[in-house]
């Protein structure tokens, strides 16, 4: 089925849970020195997910099943001048 990830189309398997995508994305950034530092400081990568315009709470990630046409974005907790 088709969803949108950060504004671009993505094909995924039906009945995919959000946590599976989260794990994939966490894997992608695991070697980034800022992510490593953040995990050391806070115990987590702090990736934040926004599903159809609403921020997803961390505890809800495992239970959410992605639906056809969903719009998913993720952001990092960074800020710099």
């Amino acid at each position: 089925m088709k969803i949108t990830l950060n504004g671009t189309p993505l094909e995924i398997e039906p009945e995919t849970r959000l946590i599976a995508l989260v794990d994939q994305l966490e894997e992608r950034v695991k070697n980034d020195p800022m992510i490593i530092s953040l995990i050391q400081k806070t115990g987590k990568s702090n990736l934040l997910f926004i599903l159809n315009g609403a921020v997803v709470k961390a505890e809800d990630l495992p239970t959410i099943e992605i639906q056809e046409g969903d719009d998913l974005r993720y952001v990092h907790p960074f800020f710099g001048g």
Partner: protein
Amino acid sequence: MKGVWNKILNVDLTEKSATTEHVPDDVYAYFLGGEGLAAWVLHKECPRGTTAFDPANRLTFAVGPMQGIKQSGAAKWAVGGISPSINMNAGSAITHAFGIEMKQAGYDAIVVHGRAEKPVYIVIDDDKVRIKDAARVWGKDAYEAHDLIQEKEGERFEVVTTGLAGERLVRYANFQTAHKSFAGRCGFGAVMGSKLLKGIAVRGSQTCPIADPKANDALNKAINKRLAAVNASKPEQFRISHLGTAMATALFAPQGNLPVKNYRLASHPEGEANLGGQSYVEKLNAKPWPCRYCVIKCHNKCEVKHGPYAYKGKGPEYESFAMMGFNLLIDDQEAVAYAGELANRYSMDTISLGGVLAWAMESYEKGVLTSADTYGIDLVWGNASAMVEMVKKIGERAPGLGYLLGEGCKIASERIGHGSEQWAIQMKGQEIAAHNWRAQYISALNYCTGVASGPNHERGNSQHIWVGHILLPEWGIDHVENAERWSWEKAAERNAKFHDYCNVINSAVHCKFQEFASYNLTDLLGTINTCTGLNWSQEEMRRCGERITNLQKQLNIRYGWKTVDDFSYPRRFMEPVSEGVAAGKIPTGLEDAIVDYYRYRGWDDGGYPTAAKLKELGMETIPG
């Protein structure tokens, strides 16, 4: 077209006149507004040979289609003209509420011409424009002048002013509004000073019609709600509204992105412990100080109650901590904050100021400057009180070194000699911003190829790909690997797209910091379309950015840019550091990367736009 007035206000200080000018729709369809509009004004009116302090220079204060809507980040506005720091066309951005008020007064831009006979300020009250004697405020610092003008004209006026550094033509002098926001880079405060213009007060009562108010309102509400939710969801130590950009020191240190000791070292542990982060909130009593309509609230008001650095006012941004703290090996947070606020009152850009002071400290270390040059000030690395004293000397343009440092480190090093050009970390005459090319090579490419303000971090912010994990998926940049920090493979495309993106943002006009709270290209396009009715696609929006880049490049050429300027980077670019994640990383191959960038742009190998590219963009002739 909706969302604009099709009208600019020309104020000629030589002729003591004010007239309005109609701007046709196709100018906005090509260049949108803001910095694009300012570049268009230069193209139309400032021929080859015009210099920054020439009365013929046009100083343009401009808004875009977004000003007046109630969206977080839409308080931003732009300034453009010929810059005294890079001696070419340039742009800068500033926020709070002046731009909104200018739009409500019925103008897309205020263009200042000429030079007054004696110091003046301009008052704009809708269609009533007056040029007033500034004798009472000339010689005052930027905040005092702001308050005196507002007291005289009324609280409802939004005001911009420059301080002593602007009056005395420090090449990196800025101007401010509301004691909190600054058009920091490129010396436009000095351009005000050269025109004997101390400030502008503006008040407006009109609403500019937009194309689809209902859709725009719904979009604004959804965006504002989401940005606020993202901000609130972050851990407190990384929450924008809690720390502002001071958050970034802790995040950039592990990436090797900080400038340390004039870009010679990889780390400054005492600085990492004391500058920015949670101690910023605790020791400086930082409180949010939002711009109009903003939900992320990155500006802070601070207060140091006791001691030699007691002050109440603007809190330092990341760039100030980086350039006035880390880059000078100073770890006294209160001193850095105090010196930053002194610079604000004098009206000096803290990025350039930090770069200039680092050059002076290295010159002192190497014996090129001695205490006889420094008024007896012991200008050793880490000396906070020496930094504060030198800020005063530069801001006052004290005879001798203070005056010379106001010219920037390029001119200062050429004047002092003894090889000191080698540690003047500048390009095209402007000090380099606080993002380290060793942490991501694309920063070197960005600094070399910038067309809108020299080696800047906000006219092409491709460093954000890594330092902020900001991508442009709608434009094809949807994933990067960490190892690509030190690769040139896709750097040309990425650098070009981030330059174009910045041009759209700076012309719309919008605040780039919203992107850290999930603002994205889909939001930007939807907002531009509901304001203007242009109904662009993502590709058409990018074309707009590309057109502005090419216009700016043509202006660079007009005002004297040569290919060699892009290749005249500091020797330090190729000096590695020995520790941290960027140990041993130097951007070898930069020359080839610059040429690759030119080719990606459709320019020739000397960096000149080709006729074919200009034809493709519809720029054989410029509208208007």
